[in-house]
């Protein structure tokens, strides 16, 4: 093992892989970036070359106009990778959103895994997380407090469908992050047997099309802007969280405001957002997932990138695990959790 001289340097705006002269999820434009997934706090525009999964590259192309065909950008499927400066990089499923990956780096006999964002529970829209053994495990900690225990997703979806059926003159407006959460909620609704059209806000239309093109069946989707108000009574509407209390929502028939997020676990949080129907559905690992994953990976060291670092650090301390917090900047936890 390459003890002594660190070859991976944590900086406030990202992780720098020194021998390869490459950044991971940098929050500002760099020459070479490996990107774990398409959320804006991990994938930025303006990099010279991007290394990512094909799905993540497609999402970056849609959001930032990254040229997928350009030869300096390279796509790698799960299990695949590349070598640069003596470092072997490979991509492994993280279970967070479509195309999300953990990145495994091997150099001089040492293995480092960076999870990006991840979760452990089933998600019909993306490949499940894989436990990749390593020496240093770099994990997120969005829900790094033991109060966060997400209930079974099926239970939350049942709550949603129950609310629509309970008041057929109204509609249920679900606030869900435009990339990942929105499509997952739709796929889960389908899995629960809801086959009526789902009405969507224009801002998520393209991402839904992208998911469908990658083989995720979302059923029939219709645009709210092209539908008469009365036709949406008794229906499910999906929109980005910012639209929930926006003027846009006035075109809906007396909506019940719902929000799909791990933060909904805390009642006062849900109330602050004026949510009537909180749905605890998250694309991030909850406390049990975080801690059990660290146990399963069983690394020599755990590095914590962002979220409630203090809680997870304390857990590591209680379980005699070496751990440190990296304090990365620019991670936006509120919207997409």
């Amino acid at each position, binding site marked *: 093992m390459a003890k002594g001289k660190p070859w991976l340097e944590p900086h406030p705006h990202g992780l720098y892989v020194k021998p390869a002269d490459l950044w991971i999820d940098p929050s500002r434009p760099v020459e070479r970036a490996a990107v774990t997934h398409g959320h804006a706090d991990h994938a930025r525009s303006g990099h010279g070359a991007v290394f990512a999964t094909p799905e993540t590259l497609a999402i970056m192309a849609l959001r930032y106009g990254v040229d997928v065909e350009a030869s300096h950008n390279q796509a790698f499927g799960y299990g695949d990778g590349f070598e640069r400066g003596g470092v072997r990089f490979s991509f492994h499923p993280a*279970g967070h959103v479509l195309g999300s990956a953990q990145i495994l780096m091997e150099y001089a006999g040492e293995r480092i895994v960076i999870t990006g964002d991840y979760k*452990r*529970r*089933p998600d019909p829209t993306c490949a*499940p*997380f*894989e*436990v*990749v*053994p390593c020496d240093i495990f770099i994990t997120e900690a969005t829900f790094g*407090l*033991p*109060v*966060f*225990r*997400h*209930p*079974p*997703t*099926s*239970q939350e979806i049942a709550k949603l469908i129950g609310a629509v059926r309970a008041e057929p003159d109204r509609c249920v407006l679900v606030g869900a992050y435009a990339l990942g959460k929105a499509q997952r909620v739709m796929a889960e609704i389908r899995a629960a047997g809801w086959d009526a059209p789902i009405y969507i806000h224009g801002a998520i239309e393209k991402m839904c099309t992208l998911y469908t093109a990658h083989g995720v069946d979302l059923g029939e989707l219709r645009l709210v802007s092209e539908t008469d108000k009365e036709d949406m009574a008794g229906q499910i509407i999906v929109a980005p969280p910012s639209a929930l*209390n*926006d*003027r846009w*929502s*006035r075109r809906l028939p007396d909506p019940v*405001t719902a929000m799909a997020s791990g933060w909904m*676990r*805390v*009642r*006062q949080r*849900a*109330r602050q957002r*004026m*949510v*009537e*129907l*909180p749905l605890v559905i998250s694309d991030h690992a909850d406390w*049990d*997932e975080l801690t*059990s*994953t660290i*146990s*399963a990976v*069983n690394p020599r060291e755990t590095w914590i990138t962002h979220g*409630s670092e*203090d*809680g997870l650090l*304390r*857990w590591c301390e*209680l379980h005699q695990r070496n751990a440190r917090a990296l304090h990365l900047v620019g991670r936006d936890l509120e919207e997409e959790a």
Partner: protein
Amino acid sequence: MKAFAALIDRLIYTRSRNSKLALIADYLKHTSDPDRGWVIAALTESFDFPAVKSAMVRTLLATRVDEELFRLSRHFVGDTAETAALLWPEPNKLLPFRGRVGVGVAGQLEADGPTTSREGEGGLTVSQAVEALSSATRATAPAILASLLDRLDADGRYALLKLALGGMRVGVSARLAKQAFAQAFDVPVDDVEELWHAIPPPYAPLFAWGEGQAERPDLADVAFFRPFMLAHPLEDATVDLADYAAEWKWDGIRVQIVHGGGQTRIYSRGGEEISAAFPELVAAFDQDAVIDGELLVRGDAQGGEAASFNALQQRLGRKTVSKKMLAEYPAFVRVYDLLAVDGNDLRPLPWTERRRRLETFVPRLADSHFDLSQVIEAADFDDLAERRAGARDAAIEGVMLKRRDAPYVAGRRAGLWYKWKRDPLTADCVMMYAQRGNGRRASFYSDYTFGCWSDDGELLPVGKAYSGFTDEELKWLDKFVRDNTVGRFGPVREVEKSLVLEVAFDSIHASKRHKSGLAMRLPRNARNPRDKTAEEADRIATLQAMVT
């Protein structure tokens, strides 16, 4: 416990009054005794279990959860009961992933198992919880609470801890609960109000009567509440003083004092008992009678007369009162009606007759704490209007007009009682900040903070208005806010200081809480945005001259 937990969970997220009523009514209809009685008591007055306090809950948690993790979590959640409910380990249930991790490198962990409920048959009921908590002593409380928590899921634990610690904060007043009861069993809300305080929780006889399985409970020898007779605003009408008697409308709080069955109780307008806040009145009221009057605080400035509402506010909402409070803000009641005396119900009698008896009754009370509200001897309506306009007493809010031949009937009946408030004060203020409203107004910036100019030319907030706007005006104002936003602080938008609103308010008082040193009572929009520039808005000094 499960149905109770579901109910409070729904109530937390429900903002509309009608939906709250429907939720509670539905719960009362579909839950059996005594659970529903305990629950409604918990929702309205919050129990007191002396042995169970939040410090004790924190100590108990420390035996199950790392203290540092509890501290971090409590800091994030902001509420001890909720933090404890979420953190309490589930002893009968393996954590979803335990025993499966490390099975295979690529194996996905199954999280979505069937929903486990430990509250099927033989589950914990609300009454069992109440019984256990009431029997707890300081020594036994931790073990008792722990065993209860062990039998519940996270939502159930939240409900239990809220029940045990009080402070439910689900926006349900005693009045709302009574209305829900009336709605659930289709009985008159006036009857519910009368019976409510006469029967202790869990109210079994009340439910039996509501469901038509028993007679209306007998209220002899109980200090029960009589629903108040209420007034309509007079608006632009006039009345003939031959038919109506006029009295001053006092700016205190309306109370009913009831003596019966050896007990004296003071009820507020909403039918909530407030005896504990005014022990001197309870002690001084020693007659077998029921009076209706205005509770006021004596003001030094007015030479022993009633002080402004601001002084009275110091005495409201207290569970105990210090000697200092009693001395600084002495309370008294200005009596204006007599509902019962010496065992006789006077409510069916006309006002003239009740008034005659009231005048002979009031001298039986200690004049240190009770006086008679005088009838205004006006020659005619115009004379009355003139007296009303000239009244500048801080405690006078306007004039009451009571039909001379009317009995005392519950609620607001047309043509019997009118209130004729003094014209409101107004000021031209500049809109400073805006926030979105609730419910139907959730997408509109409908709550405004407005300010006036200090001597140094600084705009200082003087109040906040939520009402008085038509839908059209609201639309216009919403657009103004969006087009003129200069800053955002969470949900609050700061706007360009250019729009002048005419704000009406009942009175204005000195307040240490605001930088302007002023607080308005009942501010609301008086008129459409004014055709004035911000510089022409009123100055703080002008408002200070209106302080009472």
